[in-house]
């Protein structure tokens, strides 16, 4: 009986010891794995070509594209939004919606609505069509092409 109790006590202690060791080992591994994931883009950037814009995250890149437009918009009000990543029913891709949200985040406190109703409409297009008003924007005149697919239209 005494032997059995000792065995159980020993086993429980050993189990506790093993689990503490496992906690520490797995914590170090889990932590290390996340650390590698976090610093990997920075290490890659260090070894890659020096290009200021490619080193930026998606939001900062988007912010840079809209920098000039933001400067000409008033400090509040509502503008519309048009992109080549939507059709009559809505955004055609998750990226299309992500870019709309980023545009709202960047242009705040101006409210950006996904519509062509307002007097002014912000255009966010792929670079290739920059400078050419889309056919679907009939009834609007191009106020300014800011380059990189960013445009501002006004209702005629």
């Amino acid at each position, binding site marked *: 009986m005494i032997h059995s109790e000792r065995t159980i006590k020993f086993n429980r202690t050993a189990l506790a010891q093993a689990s503490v060791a496992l906690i520490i080992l797995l914590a170090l591994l889990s932590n290390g794995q*996340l650390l590698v994931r976090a610093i990997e883009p920075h290490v890659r950037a260090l070894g890659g070509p020096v290009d200021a814009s490619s080193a930026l995250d998606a939001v900062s890149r988007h912010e840079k594209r809209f920098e000039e437009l933001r400067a000409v918009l008033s400090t509040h009000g509502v503008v519309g939004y048009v992109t080549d990543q939507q059709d009559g029913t809505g955004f055609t891709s998750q990226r299309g919606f992500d870019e709309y949200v980023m545009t709202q985040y960047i242009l*705040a406190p101006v409210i950006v609505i996904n519509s062509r109703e307002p007097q002014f409409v912000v255009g966010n297009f792929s670079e290739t069509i920059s400078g050419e008003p889309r056919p679907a924007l009939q009834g609007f005149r191009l106020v300014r092409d800011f380059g990189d697919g960013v445009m501002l239209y006004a209702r005629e």
Partner: protein
Amino acid sequence: MKVGILIAASSLLPLLIGLLAVLMLWPTGPSGRADLALKSALGVGLGLGFTSGLYFLWLVVVGPSRGFVALEIAALVGLLAGLIYRRRQGPAAKLDVATSVPNARSVAERLLSVPFALISASAFVTFIAFLVSRPHGRWDARAIWNMRARFLFRGDEAWMDAFSGFMSWTHLDYPLLVPGAIARSWRLAGSDTTAIPALIALLFAFATVGLLVASLALLRSRSQGFLAGIVLLASQTFIWHGASQYADIPMGFFVLAALVCIVFSERVPSGAARLVFLAGLMAGLAAWTKNEGTLFALVLVASYLIVVARASGWKISLRRGGLLVAGIVPTALLLIGFKMWLAPGNDLLSSLELSSSMDKLIDPLRYGYVIRRFAAQLFDMGDWLLSAPVILGIYMVGAGGKVEAVDRPGIAAASLTLSLLLMGYFLVYVVTPHELTWHIDTSLYRLALHVWPSMLFVFFMLARTPEEAGVIKQS
């Protein structure tokens, strides 16, 4: 350089206010690193929460200006004067934190402090690296929290545009602790630098770790605190979402802070009033952080009333429960004002239809699906390489459990609160008007972060310490 100094100054003020407020309410007790860490961690959340609420009130009553800083300085001076007065009055209620392990540094503590220090340093570097990669935060940060802060700061006189119905997709009814804290600091610094939301995210995440480690160090043993800290810091979702600048980490902080205060309140033989009130303040700030915080405040009050009534009778329960509610009231009033006059209806509540909800409530398939997803989430808590709860379960089997009699009501209240909170989340999923799989996919992993630090706190309050379990032989 000037902006950097202003950022530092704007961040220091809430931390000082929070620390002094905690010192005012905290009973006297043993001083030391753990004690200071505990009070500082509580002060971080209390200070950021208080100044966020104050800034929102200032915006509503006065408008966008830096004048609110005069109120903050007045609060700081008032707290300092109050603290000096309190010290002169003689010793306040004394906190009994006689841990089950002698205070001398144990072998277990020395051995566990090394991996804890390593993992803390690694988690800190990871956090900073993520912040640098994504200075604007991830989806929720830029679609909700930081965007709202931009409206509050950049909008000037038109700051109420933040709640324009045109932007209903950004959850306009979400409370404003995080956006308010960010916009306040931006206003003071005069710049909407991404360093401010990043700093606030960092403060909340590491204050949560500090609070967990320090409270367990004082209540159980320092080695127990280190062990809990190791588990939390190695939780990938905790670090990742913290650095993503999501409000779920501050929410988790306030849940833990309120429960820690409740447990400590049982350690004050001559009266728990101030700590119960502090727990109420923390619960109120949880409600000012996220809508789920309102549910938390409600279930905390209910759990506390029930547990204290069972232990000491309804008379004492109602008296202490009143103190808890008194702590919640200031933020509750702020929140009610916000919800009534600024925020539109909640998307979940406004889309609920009685007949459809009743159909969902009696649909066993929905229950089965939500139970499966909850079980999977519980298994995967913390997103470790292997299931952290399973490993903790093995530790509990090996080490065994032990709860000091004095801690039983506090631990019972904390456990009941967490259980009721999870039940509430469960029921929301069952009746959700959204597509169920999508709703769970996009939110359950974040909601888990509300309870994970507190679950670790309760677990390590229940488990024997490494010293008690004989994990490491004492020399």
